[in-house]
Structures are given as structure tokens and as C-alpha cells.
């Protein structure tokens, strides 16, 4: 079966800068993909291309549709939450539900009401009366009531407190996600989502610098905590990164034999955040 999202030679220029530079990737159905990159790396541009919100060069199909050509059809299978608080402030909760139900063939009113019943949101409230966290809850309730194939989340929890952030991802994973659904998510708070991701994509200066499943990432990358006596031996193996903690050095290795590394010190699975920092070294330099 073809991948849900297929990109080949995807390029997007703004003037002379390339927000996307000859990017290619596949996203299979049933995955949760974390698209991670520094500010201005091209994350949002990539998402906009997938959603048909920007023009681009190259080939891109989403659920078999070219997003530039048939957006209306595409959006029956694709949902997105772009940033927080893009719901219009004048809209009432009941109007939002009626509108989405009126234009979306796969919207289930019962599901939406059930999600909202677990929050403090009342049907008569206007969006401008809701807190930032409640707006995201409302948007999530609307989106989760739609039986879509692809859900795109662009910084969905930016500016929310940790309670809302946690419950956002728990709800998403517990009540929404299944093998027929695919989620693409960008966020700067990687540590909060790394345990729910199945795939990881790093993007830097408009290029994909890492694209792998989380399992493969666990196989490839390893961290070793090394005492001062063996530090030089570790450096000789070509680590990606080195940092100091309590007088010991922590080295991050990519694809080095684990048995050999075990001789140097204690092995750890690196966090995505550490991996990210190591990979993106020198981005702003």
C-alpha cells in the first residue's frame, strides 16, 4: 500500500531563502510522527504544504490527493489544529459544533458532546470567554469527533500549562488514535511527547536530517557515561556530542557497537531532546 503522505523533491522558496530544500519523505498510515526542528527550520512550511495552504515545487500526495489541486476533498480526510487559539473569538460553542457538523460529512455530534461533557465548556459560551486551555479543549473535541485519516498538529499546546498539555496528549492517545489514523505533530516540548511518538523526523534549514522510527532511533543512538580516565578512548570513537556532568563525560554515539561502548561505561538510551541538541549543533552559529 502507498504511504499516506508522499513527498518528493519538495521545495519552497521565500525570495532567495529556501524554507524547504528538495525534501523527500513517506509517512505511513497508523503512525504518530514528531516533526522536530529549530525555529525557522521549515516545519510549518512543510505542514502548510501538506494542508494545501501554500504553493510549492516538487511532488506531494496526501491520501492520494495533490493538496494544491483538490483541497476541499482533501480536508474531508485531514484535520488540523494550527497553533493555539485560531478559533474565531466571536463564535459560540454551540455554533462551532453546528457549523462543523454542517460542513463535515464525517463529524459525529455525539462524540463531540461526550468530549465536551468532560470539560467546563458550556454550549452558550463564546470563544473569547474561554481560557487558552479551554479553547484547545474545544478545538480538540471538534477535531476528535471527525473520523479523519490524518491529523496535523502545529504546536498544539504552545502556551498551555502542564495540566492542559498532559491531558491533551493523553486524550489524543487514549480516545482518538488507532491504527487507521495518522498524526503529525510539531512541538518544542519534545520530552513531553517522545513516549507517544512512533516516528521521528528532524528538520534543519529546510532539509530532513533524520527520519527514523523510534525503535530504530533506540537501536542507533546510545549514550555512555564515561569517567575521566576513559574519556580519550571514547573521543577516539567519534561521538556526536559530549557534555559534562558531575565530573564525568556523557558521550552520544550514532551506530557504534554497543558491546564496545559498554566497556567504557554505563549505557543509556538518549532522550530525544539530547539527540536533538546534538544533531542541531551550530544551527544558529
Amino acid at each position, binding site marked *: 500500500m502507498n504511504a499516506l503522505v508522499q513527498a518528493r523533491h519538495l521545495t519552497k522558496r521565500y525570495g532567495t531563502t529556501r524554507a524547504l530544500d528538495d525534501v523527500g519523505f513517506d509517512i505511513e498510515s497508523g503512525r504518530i510522527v514528531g516533526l522536530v526542528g529549530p525555529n525557522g527550520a521549515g516545519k510549518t512550511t512543510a505542514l502548510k504544504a501538506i494542508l494545501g495552504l501554500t*504553493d510549492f515545487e516538487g511532488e506531494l500526495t496526501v491520501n492520494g490527493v495533490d493538496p494544491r489541486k483538490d*483541497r476541499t476533498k482533501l480536508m474531508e480526510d485531514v484535520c488540523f489544529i494550527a497553533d493555539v487559539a485560531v478559533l474565531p473569538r466571536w463564535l459560540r460553542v454551540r455554533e462551532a459544533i453546528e457549523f462543523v457538523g454542517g460542513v463535515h460529512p464525517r463529524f459525529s455530534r455525539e462524540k463531540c458532546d461526550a468530549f465536551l461533557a468532560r470539560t467546563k465548556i458550556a454550549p452558550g459560551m463564546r470563544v473569547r470567554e474561554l481560557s487558552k486551555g479551554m479553547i484547545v479543549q474545544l478545538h480538540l473535541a471538534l477535531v476528535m469527533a471527525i473520523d479523519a485519516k490524518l491529523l496535523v498538529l502545529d504546536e498544539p499546546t504552545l502556551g498551555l500549562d502542564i495540566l492542559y498539555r498532559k491531558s491533551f496528549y493523553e486524550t489524543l492517545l487514549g480516545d482518538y488514535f488507532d491504527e487507521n489514523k495518522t498524526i503529525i505533530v510539531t512541538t518544542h516540548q519534545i520530552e513531553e511527547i517522545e513516549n507517544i511518538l512512533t516516528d521521528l523526523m528532524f528538520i534543519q534549514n529546510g532539509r530532513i536530517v533524520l527520519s527514523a522510527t523510534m525503535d530504530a532511533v533506540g537501536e542507533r543512538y546510545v549514550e555512555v557515561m564515561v569517567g575521566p580516565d576513559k574519556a580519550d578512548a571514547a573521543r577516539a570513537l567519534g561521538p556526536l556530542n559530549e557534555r559534562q556532568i558531575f565530573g564525568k563525560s556523557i558521550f552520544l554515539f550514532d551506530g557504534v557497537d554497543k558491546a564496545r561502548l559498554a566497556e567504557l561505561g554505563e549505557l543509556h538510551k538518549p532522550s530525544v531532546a539530547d539527540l536533538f541538541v546534538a544533531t542541531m549543533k551550530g544551527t544558529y552559529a
Partner: protein
Amino acid sequence: MNKLPILLKREYWEHRGGFLWTPVWMTVSILVLTVLGMISAEIFRQRAGVHFNFSLDNVRDSISAKDFAGAGYALDVCQFTFAVLPCVALFFVLFFYLLGALYDDRRDRSVLFWKSLPVSDAATVTSKVLSAMFVAPVIALAVSTLAYLAFVLIVSAWLGLHGLNVLPALAASHPLRTLWHMLLAVPVNALWALPAIGWLLFWSAWSRAKPFLWAVMLPILAVFANAWIGMLGGPHFTGTLDFARILGRLLLSVMPGSWMNSSVAGTLHEWMPNPGMAADGGLLNPDRLLAVLASANLWIGVVAGLALIAAAIWLRGRRIETSV
């Protein structure tokens, strides 16, 4: 799945204030002024110690059939006036509604929410065009008709308290005919307004900032530039007035009834069929409306309007946020 009704509903939800409450408050304030007028009349009458002695006999003696016809005509004019005032407000409501229709949601980024749903740009823009052409004017007409009914009830009750029977005057008025003529004027107004609807929507979709300046200053500057170049002897449109008229048409045609040019409009007296006139007289009579519908001016405007609307739909697909 026909999405147009829910899209029109969405426009109404967002602009309830302009579409519904503006005509409601305008007509309600007229009614309040009427009641205040009655109260002060009562108070002055009491203070002056004047006592009217109306009785049905008096009325029968002193009011002739011709007077009732005159009163009926006055009521028709009254009904028409009740509709005219919300129309003046409707101009401002529609003008700013259209200027903001494709701009405000880009400015506050809620366009990203609307665009996350399976609604085509053509359907979105069409719903805004139809709201301006029909939804807002029909609501204004409905409100003004209800207000006129309330006015008749209040005045009848007041006069009734003084023993004057108003039924003959009411029987001599033509509320249904007047309403029907005003209703017929709605599609004529709508077609006449198309170039302005297109013009305002176009700049609304085009602007990254301040659509008002683009839509309004551009035509004004164009007229001035044209006249100035002409003054210096350069190439220009010689008919400065005609040029201004065309641009005025683009900018101001959302004013209901603006197809009545000043030479036809005349006095209010001519607008309504009055007792001395045939039943189908008056400016709003169907024949006059047909004459407007048959004019080249209207159809050239319709073509220009549709072209501008098509451009607005195209822009809606490309200009998404105001900042990028």
C-alpha cells in the same frame, strides 16, 4: 451535501449585530420617539386645558372619503420611511461587512480554522456575496415591516383613546402593495450592488493591511490623478465626472436604491403611488424596476462585479495569513 445554508448561517452569526440589531435599534428608536411625542402632546394638551371632543358622529361628519384616501397615502409613505431609515444604515453595515469579510479572519488567523474544514473558497466567498445581496436586506425589510405594524398599533390605540376610529384610514392604505414593491426592489438593489460587492471583497481578499485605504483611497486618488494630468495637458479621460461616476459605482453601489439617479428620484411625493396617481405609479412600481433591470448600466456592473468576485475567490486560495 449542500453547505450553503450553514455558510449563510455562519455569516449571520458573526454579523448579527449589523444584520439584525442595527435595523432593530433604528426602528425601535423611531417608535420610542413616537411614543415620547404622544406623551408630550398629552401633557401639553392637559396643561393648556384643551379638550378634544371626538365622537364617531363628529368623525363621520367632518372627515370625507378624500381625507381618508389622503390618510391612507400618508400611512403608505410612513411604511416606506420605516424601511428607508434601516436602508441608510444598511449601506454602512454592508460596506464594512464586505471590507472585512475576507480580511478579518486572516488578521486574527481564524482563517486557519475555517480552512481546516472541507469548504471550497468559492463556496465561502459566495456565501458572503449572497449575505450582502439578500440576507441583510431581507432582514432589514422584515424588521422595518414589523416596526411599521407596531407603529400603526400604537398610533391607532392612541387615537382610539380619543375616540377616533382609524380603520377607514387603514383600509385606504396599501401595506401589502407597498411591501411587495419594496420586496421586488431587493433583487434589483442586489444586482445593482454587485460591482461594489466585488470591489470591496476583492480588496478584502487582497490587502495585507488596511483594506479600507485600498478600496477607498485608490479610486479617489485615481480621480484626482486623472484630473491633475488633464490639467497639465497629459493623456487622461476627458469626462472627469463620468470617470468619478464609474468609480463611485464601484465604491458606493451597496446603497439600496442608489440606482435611482437624482433626475428620476424627485421628491418623496413621487416615490409612492399617491391618490392622484394610477395604482401602479411611484418610483418603486414594477415597471420602473423592470426599466432598471433592462439598463446597460446595471448589466455592465453585474459583469464587472462577477469578474471581481472571481478574482476574490482566486486570492482567497492564495493569501492566507496577513503576515506571510
